[in-house]
């Protein structure tokens, strides 16, 4: 048993190290890709210069492309991908619902609505807080509707999430139409489908600090999440304060989702796909699952965003379109695998 365990531990360390290496490579390569040619050496030179480290010279134009445009965008995509994937993993475990995801259960749309409300009031500094409140309200509404007339099953939760997401999306579109001048279609698309095209260093700060703060909290709760494998009663009989844990973690998820949506709009399916993929690699134990889910989510969204901005160059797709093209087939696969009681 011990040998097997050591082998597995080595295997996991390999996966995590490989994934972190992969993330660094994906970010670096993503920064070189775009309308203006930038070499990997120039990317490194620009970063080292800004960090005050010794490094090569780089011309001003290339430097501003790297430092002002592409790097914030890539780092935002990485943080948002990690945050959404972690959110999905936590929601799936704590609600024992393989289809739980901040997008499918309406949190993302709720966060978009909250964000848009403060944007039109000109209170952009309150963006993350409003998005958090929006996500929290949407979560509360979804669970309340799902609970009407019985226990919360995966199917009920997804249907309620759909209703809330539609309502919040309609609200978001309405507010933008009612208030915006000029190119409101693009703005609606960015909030509803998600995009990191407008990312700045502020976006990086908001998304990365939320990821660090809430992500640490979630990873430290890994053992308590394991205890939910057989449901609420089993978790309680294993010494977990079920209600306190559930609400603390769901609140954390709302905060994380809110922060991510405030910088990127509602990007779908990242939180749905990644946890299932990573469970397939390292199993369902959360101490292994959560760190790897975060890194893989980051790689996924950095890659998807790079595809989104280069596929129809010079035109850009909102990255949510790419994640939906990949996510919906996975969603169908998951439904195919769910049988019997889960739908009852």
């Amino acid at each position, binding site marked *: 048993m011990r040998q097997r365990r050591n082998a597995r531990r080595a295997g996991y360390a390999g996966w995590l190290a490989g994934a972190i290496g992969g993330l660094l490579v994906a970010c670096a390569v993503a920064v070189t890709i775009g309308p203006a040619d930038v070499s990997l050496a120039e990317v490194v030179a620009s970063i080292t210069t800004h960090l005050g480290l010794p490094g090569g010279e780089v011309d001003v134009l290339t430097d501003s492309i790297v430092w002002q445009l592409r790097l914030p965008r890539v780092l935002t995509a990485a943080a948002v991908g990690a945050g959404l994937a972690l959110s999905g993993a936590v929601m799936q475990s704590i609600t024992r619902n393989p289809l739980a995801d901040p997008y499918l259960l309406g949190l993302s749309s709720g966060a978009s609505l909250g964000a848009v409300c403060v944007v039109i009031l000109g209170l952009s500094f309150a963006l993350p807080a409003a998005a958090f409140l929006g996500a929290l309200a949407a979560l509360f509404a979804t669970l309340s509707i799902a609970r009407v007339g019985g226990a919360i099953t995966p199917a009920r939760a997804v249907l309620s999430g759909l209703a809330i997401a539609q309502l919040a999306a309609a609200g978001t579109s309405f507010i933008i139409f009612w208030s915006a001048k000029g190119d409101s279609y693009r703005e609606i698309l960015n909030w509803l489908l998600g995009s990191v095209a407008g990312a700045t260093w502020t976006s990086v700060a908001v998304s990365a600090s939320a990821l660090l703060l809430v992500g640490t909290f979630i990873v430290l709760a890994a053992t308590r999440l394991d205890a939910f494998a057989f449901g609420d009663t089993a978790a309680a009989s*294993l010494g977990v304060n079920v209600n306190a844990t559930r609400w603390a973690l769901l609140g954390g998820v709302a905060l994380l989702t809110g922060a991510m949506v405030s910088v990127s709009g509602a990007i779908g399916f990242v939180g749905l796909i990644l946890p299932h993929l990573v469970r397939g690699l390292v199993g369902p134990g959360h101490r292994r699952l959560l760190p790897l889910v975060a890194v893989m989510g980051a790689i996924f969204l950095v890659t998807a965003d790079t595809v989104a901005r280069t596929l129809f160059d010079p035109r850009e797709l909102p990255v949510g379109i790419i994640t939906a093209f990949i996510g919906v087939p996975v969603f169908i696969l998951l439904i195919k695998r769910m049988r019997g009681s889960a739908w009852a």
Partner: protein
Amino acid sequence: MGVILDSVSFAIDGQAILSTVSARIPDGAVVGLLGPNGAGKSTLLRLIAGIEAPDAGTIRVGDSDVAALPRRDAARLIALLEQNASPGVDLSVEQVVLLGRIPHRTGVLGSFGGPDDQRVAAEALASVGAESLADRAWHTLSGGQQQRVQIARALAQQPALLLLDEPTNHLDVSAQLSLMSLVRHQVGPAGLTAIAALHDLNLAAAYCDHVLLLNAGRLVAAGPPREVLQPSTISDVYGVEADVIPHPRDGHPVIVFSEPAAYFPSPFPARAAKSSLRPPDTDSMTARASRTEDET
């Protein structure tokens, strides 16, 4: 560890589930919790486990008032096997047993697992005779194997009190007997007490030292199975006729059931009632058919 129930009452939405249940459960015994569906067996187990607190009365496990224990302390003292438990994700048998170590992990660093976890889990699995299943996926096990692994998980909690909610449900005869015998063997020596909600009175008579008989939330009788499981008591609580005979091999009580007289409706009124239920339009159609025949 012994358990003392002192006028325990519990209601859900104003409806009484348990009413002033008082009982003393001896240390180191296998105890059967008996009663018809809805008698309050599962609820009583949840209260003893401390998952819910009684509305009135107290439950003491050893020296502790369960309702006042912090959750983690309760989980180190009391393990619960739920009915029909199944995990929401694909877990291996080893991972299921390791869940039992969760209450023993403390603090931020402890959440990464104690050094004893692997050893205790392996021992627990061995003590239920399931070490060969360690690497199997939970959902590929038979019902009997799953219950065995659940007991290993519960033993990994190193509890003083083991609660089992209908552990033999859906198991074949051989798995039922071997499960009860397993529980029997775990109890006693290490100071472990087991309380099992059971539907099968004969399993209770064969394996329990002590039984509690509940009906509609009230304790009807308590004591050794031979004393509690009397034909008149069974008839009062379950509404079936019963005879208690000695087991041909070891003499423990065996209960055989007969349907009560009230279950046999007289065949004649029943048949008469049936004929009157013939659909009326069949009659009229036959009548119409015969009339047309007459006319032609």
